């Protein structure tokens, strides 16, 4: 690096052309361009960062060396969920989203980026079929943000300030939502009974100051809300909006919330074609009916079909752009920015591959394996199910005499991640299509063995 600094990422570090360009703009050196940066704000030393690895092979060896410390869920038997799920991702999904044309596109217009507009319109449309609603947004950051925005929309729509939450909410999600809506909404908890909503208690607390009833289904514990219709009717009776937070994975077999009266359905699409990525690949959807009162409250971009000069040809464009912060800054609806479009394309490809039968079969498989795991685990002495609700993919178990963290530690030594610790005696267990019956049997045997060992040590 003692010679003139030339880097493959920066073409005009080539000395001749750099000199030519400086001459063209009559500058002696690049520092001239910083005339507006006061001298005392200039950093008069090199940044104190490690020596670089400009040769690609050295860089690759360095980064791979760091990442090689990780042990994957392919090397461990994992029953971890709690918002990030180990679903199988079809190869075609990965193939499509790693295409340079999608991966490195950004803010092109509907002409030269027709494909991106169509792919995202199709994502919206496929999700709409799964959710049985007519409007779905271009993805926002994640399901946390989607719920927070869904509640904010309800607040703006109703002009009211109370939210009643009737489900158990993932704590991290609850943290995000509360801080996000803090300026406009107060969230009150209506405690669940046996895993799902206490509809009677909800009815008592509803009033015409309630902006929204917030339902999570499946909930933090994987419980499916089976009384959504009653909740919706009660909420609508006082003019409150029903906001649902969900995971769309089950709607090949389960009735989607819209058919039980939900007004705003939000959730995360990580389950639909995205790898776990250490929890770093999420995207949120917000679905509503095709009602301008609702649509005009959505902050995200909405891609719509439109006609062109050629009869029968489909063009695409932004629906109701005037809602957005791009158009109106603080007078827009919340804000719109770079969020998670690529993951929307992934989910679209995933749903195109799965089709109705795939989603139905997957839903059934998840229900069956969840039930199976519940049976196997609760058959172990000292282990009981956390509640009696219908569960999809996740459920909790309680240990009558063991500590959940201790149990996790014991099973990790066997290469098993048995679940996420909820509290000292409760574990949140997750099964997907990647956890086979044999895997579940292995978990049950390992838990039984660990509890036995514990008993013996205690005896």
């Amino acid at each position, binding site marked *: 690096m003692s010679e003139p600094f030339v*880097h493959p990422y920066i*073409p005009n570090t080539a000395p001749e052309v750099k000199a030519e360009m400086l001459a*063209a703009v009559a500058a002696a050196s690049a520092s001239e*361009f910083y005339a507006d940066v*006061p001298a005392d704000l200039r*950093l008069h030393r*090199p940044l*104190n*960062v*490690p*020596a670089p690895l*400009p040769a690609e092979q050295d860089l690759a060896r*360095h980064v791979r060396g*760091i*990442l*090689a*410390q990780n042990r*994957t869920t*392919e090397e461990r038997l994992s029953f971890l969920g709690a918002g*990030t799920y180990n679903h199988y991702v079809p190869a*075609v999904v990965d193939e499509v989203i790693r295409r340079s044309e999608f991966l*490195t*596109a*950004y*803010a092109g*217009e509907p002409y*030269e980026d*027709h*494909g991106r507009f169509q792919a*995202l319109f*199709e994502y919206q*449309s496929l999700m709409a079929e799964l959710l049985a609603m007519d*409007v779905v947004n271009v993805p926002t950051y994640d399901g946390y943000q989607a719920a927070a925005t869904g509640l904010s929309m309800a607040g703006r729509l109703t002009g009211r300030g109370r939210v009643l939450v009737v489900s158990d909410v993932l704590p991290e999600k609850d943290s*995000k939502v509360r*801080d996000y809506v803090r300026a406009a909404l107060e969230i009150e908890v209506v405690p669940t009974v046996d895993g799902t909503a206490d509809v009677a208690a909800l009815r008592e607390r509803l009033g015409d100051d309630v902006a929204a009833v917030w339902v999570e289904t499946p909930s933090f514990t994987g419980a499916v809300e089976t009384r959504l219709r009653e909740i919706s009717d009660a909420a609508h009776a006082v*003019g409150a909006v029903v906001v649902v937070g969900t995971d769309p994975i089950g709607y090949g*077999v389960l009735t989607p919330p819209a*058919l039980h*009266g939900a*007004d705003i359905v939000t959730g995360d699409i990580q389950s639909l074609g995205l790898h776990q*990525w250490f929890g770093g*690949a999420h*995207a949120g959807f917000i679905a509503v009916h095709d*009602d301008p009162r609702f649509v005009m409250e959505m902050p995200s971009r909405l891609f*719509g*079909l439109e006609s062109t000069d050629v009869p029968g040809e489909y063009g695409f464009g*932004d629906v109701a752009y*005037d809602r957005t912060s*791009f158009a109106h*800054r*603080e*007078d827009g609806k919340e804000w719109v920015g770079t969020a*998670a*479009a690529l993951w929307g394309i992934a989910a679209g490809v995933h749903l*195109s*591959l799965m089709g109705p*039968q795939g989603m139905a079969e997957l839903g059934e498989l998840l229900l069956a394996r969840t039930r*199976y795991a519940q*049976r196997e685990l609760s058959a172990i002495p000292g282990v009981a199910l956390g509640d009696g609700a*219908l569960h999809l993919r996740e459920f909790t178990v309680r240990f009558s005499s063991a500590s959940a963290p201790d149990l996790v530690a014991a099973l990790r030594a066997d290469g098993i991640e048995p679940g996420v610790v909820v509290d000292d005696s409760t574990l949140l267990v997750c099964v997907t299509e990647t956890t086979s019956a044999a895997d579940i049997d292995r978990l049950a045997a390992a838990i039984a063995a660990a509890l036995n060992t514990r008993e013996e040590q205690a005896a």
Partner: protein
Amino acid sequence: WDEPIVFELSTPGERGILIPSVEPSVREAVGDVVAALPEGMRRPAPPALPEIAQMRVLKHYLRLSQENLGSDLNVDIGQGTCTIKYSPKINDQLIEVPQLRALHPAQDPADTQGALEMLWRLERLMAEISGMDAVSLASPGGSAGIWTNIAMIRAYHASRGEGEQRDEVITTIFSHPSNAAAAKVAGYKVITIHPDTDGYPDLGALKAALSERTAAIMVTNPEDTGIYNPAIQEWVEAAHAVGALASYDQANAAGILGITRARDAGFDVCQFNLHKTFSAPHGSGGPGAAANAVSAALEPFLPGPRVERVDGRFVVREAGDLSIGHVAPAHGVILHVVRAYAWIMALGAEGMLAASQIAVLNNNYLLQRVLEIPGASAPYATGRRRIEQVRYSWQELFEQTGITSEEIGIRMADYGFHYWTSHHPYVVPQPFTLEPTECYSKAEIDEYVSALAQVAREARETPELVRTAPHNQTVHHTHHDDLDDPERWAITWRAYRRKYFGETPADFSAPADLAGAAA
């Protein structure tokens, strides 16, 4: 390609992928779980997703991809403010490994040391680059990072009992709109400062606006005009003087890495966009990622979870009571964390400085070339250098020909170039914003300018050709008026079929009649 909408490709019975069957042992143990669902919980009919064999699904999306211009394919100078850099392919290769893809955030930290080390390393690099004390990589986008900034500022004032009193945020008109919008969501009244006659942020106007009600100033610098605020330190000092915090939107940092740092100008908090300044790809509009960097005073307010290094090992800690909590799942967008780390390590201090300097050289070279085109101008700060981008104007050309900047943009696409027409705010008339970054060669910049000059010539000589563009794209001139009319907009295929063909799907349900809601 004249590729249909995916629903039009459906053939009954085709399968795109198969799902494992329920194991016999499971079936025997649990019976027919679908039939056993409680009343009303079983979906009446399957969702009307298309049925398409695998190769055709692949072909569909590959064809759509080809109808798209990624920055790998074109000379992406026209997406000003977006900082379209080269996203090195090695960085994509580095993340596409099971060691990241198949990693769950709740795994034993002993099994995720590599990921945690990456987070820790990039935090340290970002602290040095910004001059700040502590960094969080949790925010999943640039605007999300701006939200994290204002959420921390709100928590800071609340912790000091000034939450009620300080209900105003000040920004500038050429700062990214998300600064204003996020402040609004956080409950603040937004005050916007316009530039002085030279296009520089107006220090006098700021001072007039500041008061004990001010929670923060939230500014981008250089602004989207490419103009660096030479009085930035005075801005920060003025804010501090009334007890307000100073928040720095570093979305436009691509020209100043290693030149000047946020903390050195006194800022309390700032955010960088990993998908712009640090080369992570834009993904058709996300995922993005931000690095939020703060002074020691604001560190307790950073979102959680936090990664710490203890005895050479990396541990995860929940954030403390003052923290704003979680802003997204887990630790943020790890893909971009690794990519940004790899980009910085490929360049080092000398390389980042060179990247900034060449980005600025490219921009000033481009400025000179664009100004040679009759009808183009660069409002504000006439004759002065710019940093990494310039907001130009076709006002003169428009007055002479009636051709708008948007029409020129559409015609540019016929030549295979992007040209972004969103130039919030619309203060500059007939605007266009170009940002060449350090990644384009002189030859490519010249190529772009030539096309621009050609279209400007066409605007004078054959304006109809420009007005009726595109002539060379997948689709033809579209009718945007469909999109703003609730009776005609079609946000999904099912809505389109229902509104235009009267096909009401079996699972259609009408919006609730929120009788009381309007009240």
